């Protein structure tokens, strides 16, 4: 299925929760989903036979600009059987970034969500074990945010080496 | 019972097969080198050469450096520090030298007589003031005995693959430091260098330069002496 068709299927199924379809920019077109509905949408995508998105290729957080009010959480999903892929995007506000987890649908989302939490501070509700994964547990701040200032010292060591 | 015996049998058999593989290698020659003893590749057998173009220590033939700061900009890890002042418009210190790349892979550094911009394959090129790049003594050796003294050589246009043109040196360099402890040996800086004076040593010196102190790994390329002399014509290649 083409991304447009998937978009139509999703709008038919979820209506309001599907916010739009971005095709203007170069590269992959993406479907914008309301963050609260992301689990339902993913569940639907994974379990419907005609879609059968059985593998989550990549899950990434993104902070596109320091001026933006929102983080993006981007899901690249692929269906081995039908060989089609789709990009879902959920925008979460920077002030309180949280959205439901999809780690029970694709287990690989477990670590990818932990990584997004670690580097962006996006909270995934319903995640089993949302700990920092790459950085030390007691690290301050979320380094991939555009407004991140690196700390001067970490446990007595100078950070900007 | 059948499986039991089969298991024993397979265990013994595969062990013997593996032992056959290893005992064959037992009588094969060594593949290793005694590195510090055999690394001098004029003396010993079986020592691999460091191939041409190997990315070793960075070296700047500073008299040809025009101070364009392209290397500083492209360096992903900021290991190059350049400070300097641009001369007033229209002034220049001297011209950098030509680098002639021959098709057999050697590079000759010198000054092309005449116009270096347009080189046709039927032309022959005469190079004067040939200096050798560090570690490539073979260039000097290539020259005729008479040429070795006058440091002049002539190549036919077919031999030449590429010529780097002369650029005016318009920067007065105060500092050109390369911190090799930060360098990640990506070689991007040598690619952007317009005069090809920034090179990576593809010789043993380019690899074996470990120091006891990290600060010794900051290499300064200084030009002050040359400024006082006022030109590249009399300057020998740096040591």
């Amino acid at each position, binding site marked *: 299925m083409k991304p447009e068709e998937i978009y139509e299927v999703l709008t038919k199924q979820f209506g309001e929760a599907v916010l739009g379809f971005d095709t203007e920019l170069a590269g992959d077109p993406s479907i914008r989903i309301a963050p609260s509905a992301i689990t339902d949408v993913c569940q639907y995508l994974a379990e419907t036979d005609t879609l059968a998105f059985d593998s989550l290729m990549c899950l990434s957080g993104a902070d596109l600009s320091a001026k933006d009010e929102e983080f993006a959480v981007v899901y690249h999903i692929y269906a081995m059987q039908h060989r089609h892929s789709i990009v879902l995007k959920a925008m979460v506000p920077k002030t309180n970034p949280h959205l439901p987890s999809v780690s029970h649908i694709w287990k690989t989302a477990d670590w990818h969500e932990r990584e997004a939490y670690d580097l962006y501070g996006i909270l995934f509700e319903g995640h089993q074990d949302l700990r920092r994964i790459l950085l030390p547990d007691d690290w301050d701040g979320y380094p991939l945010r555009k407004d991140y200032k690196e700390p001067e010292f970490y446990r007595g060591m100078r950070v900007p080496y | 019972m059948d499986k039991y015996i089969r298991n024993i049998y397979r265990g013994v058999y595969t062990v013997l097969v593996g032992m056959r593989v290893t005992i064959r290698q037992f009588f094969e020659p060594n593949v290793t080198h005694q590195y510090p003893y055999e690394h001098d590749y004029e003396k010993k057998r079986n020592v691999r050469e460091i191939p041409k173009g190997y990315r070793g220590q960075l070296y700047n033939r500073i008299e040809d450096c025009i101070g364009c700061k392209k290397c500083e900009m492209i360096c992903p890890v900021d290991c190059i520090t350049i400070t300097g002042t641009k001369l007033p418009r229209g002034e220049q210190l001297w011209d950098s030298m030509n680098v002639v790349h021959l098709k057999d892979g050697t590079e000759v550094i010198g000054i092309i007589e005449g116009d270096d911009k347009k080189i046709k394959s039927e032309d022959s090129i005469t190079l004067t003031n040939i200096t050798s790049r560090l570690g490539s003594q073979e260039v000097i050796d290539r020259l005729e005995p008479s040429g070795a003294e006058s440091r002049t050589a002539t190549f036919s246009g077919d031999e030449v693959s590429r010529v780097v043109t002369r650029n005016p040196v318009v920067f007065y360099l105060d500092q050109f430091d390369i911190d090799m402890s930060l360098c*990640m040996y990506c070689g991007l800086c040598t690619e952007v260098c317009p005069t090809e004076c920034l090179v990576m040593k593809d010789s043993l010196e380019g690899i074996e330069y470990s120091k006891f102190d990290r600060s010794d790994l900051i290499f300064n390329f200084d030009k002050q002496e040359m400024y006082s002399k006022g030109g590249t014509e009399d300057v020998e290649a740096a040591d």
Partner: protein
Amino acid sequence: METTQQTESKIIELKPFADEMVVNMGPQHPSTHGVLRLELKLDGEVVREAIPHIGYLHRCFEKHSENLSYPQIIPFTDRMDYVAAMNQNWGFCLAVEKLMETDESRNFEVPERAEYLRVLICELNRIASHLLSFGTYGMDIGAFTPFLYAFRDRERLLLLFEKVCGARLTYNYIRIGGVSEIIPMEPGSIAEQNFLDEIEAFLDYFEPLIDEYNDLLTKNSIFAERTTRVAVMSAEMALSYGATGPNLRGSGVDWDLRRDEPYSIYDRFDFDVPVAVDVPELGSVVGDCWSRYKIRMDEMKESVRIVRQILAEGLPSGPVMADLKAVRPPQGEIYFRSEAPRGELGFYIVSDGTPKPVRLKGRSPCFSALSALQELSRGLMVADIIAIIGSIDIVMGEVDR
């Protein structure tokens, strides 16, 4: 997609009342392939739970990249999977090229010669990577000799890479729009002929050795005992955990990006995709450690085949670098994946039209595959943990980025 039937896996009954011992395996441990730390909860020799802790090699490559221009990022991708750095370079360059393709005004095409060189070098790099994986796996299981044999042969490949790009491990060879010209190799020159001859000589030397390695290790009954029916990963589990590459094929899923989503010029070559099957004579079932390991051994043969086809055709003449003034992709985003030796290497790039990416995420195959370790290792023994880590073939530089 077929599902594989689960056969009995060697799971040992846990006694809930027994004392538990918590052991830290790593970050400094001989066989955690770098700086992986596993928190093992042991009941004697039996592992109740193995919790991986990663991040000891974290360099925040993604943050770095946001401050670097695209060509400057390439040397950083070398440091991701330093065992197969060519493939990492390529994956990144493919993603950027794909993003730039969409902009018609800056259209360019990667020259034919560069494509051939890329495939040639990357397949050789795949052999080198699998050789390392084979060697270290042998050492994990306790056989030291295969390790040195693998390094002996890998050394010849590294010498080849050294000649073509000037470095042994961090190549920075494949560039956006072509390959590096740092060591020029004129079409039809003696240098090119020597290079191809050396590759041919290596292949002639190496091809029979694969069978020898199979005799030495793969078919060895002790090795088979150690690795077969251990940590069986079903196809569903592999897909769900995002295991890709040899790990996915080891679970019986016939999937290879080179064949199924051909990028570059892979559609011109004839090669098979090895997929695991049950091997009853050794007791192997689909999805166990042995299958994953065996896929790598078979893939080396396929890579040799691809390289031989290139050698038979000869490199086309022409330039190796596209005429590309500046690398400045249009505004937009791309996720592009390629088949690295360890699996599907994806790069998610968001560009705002400037020379620097806004967001770059490397989706490394090992990161996803390693997350399956916790589930795979439950109820096995300490020695099996080592077997699993080796069989999913992680490189911590890529996991931690």
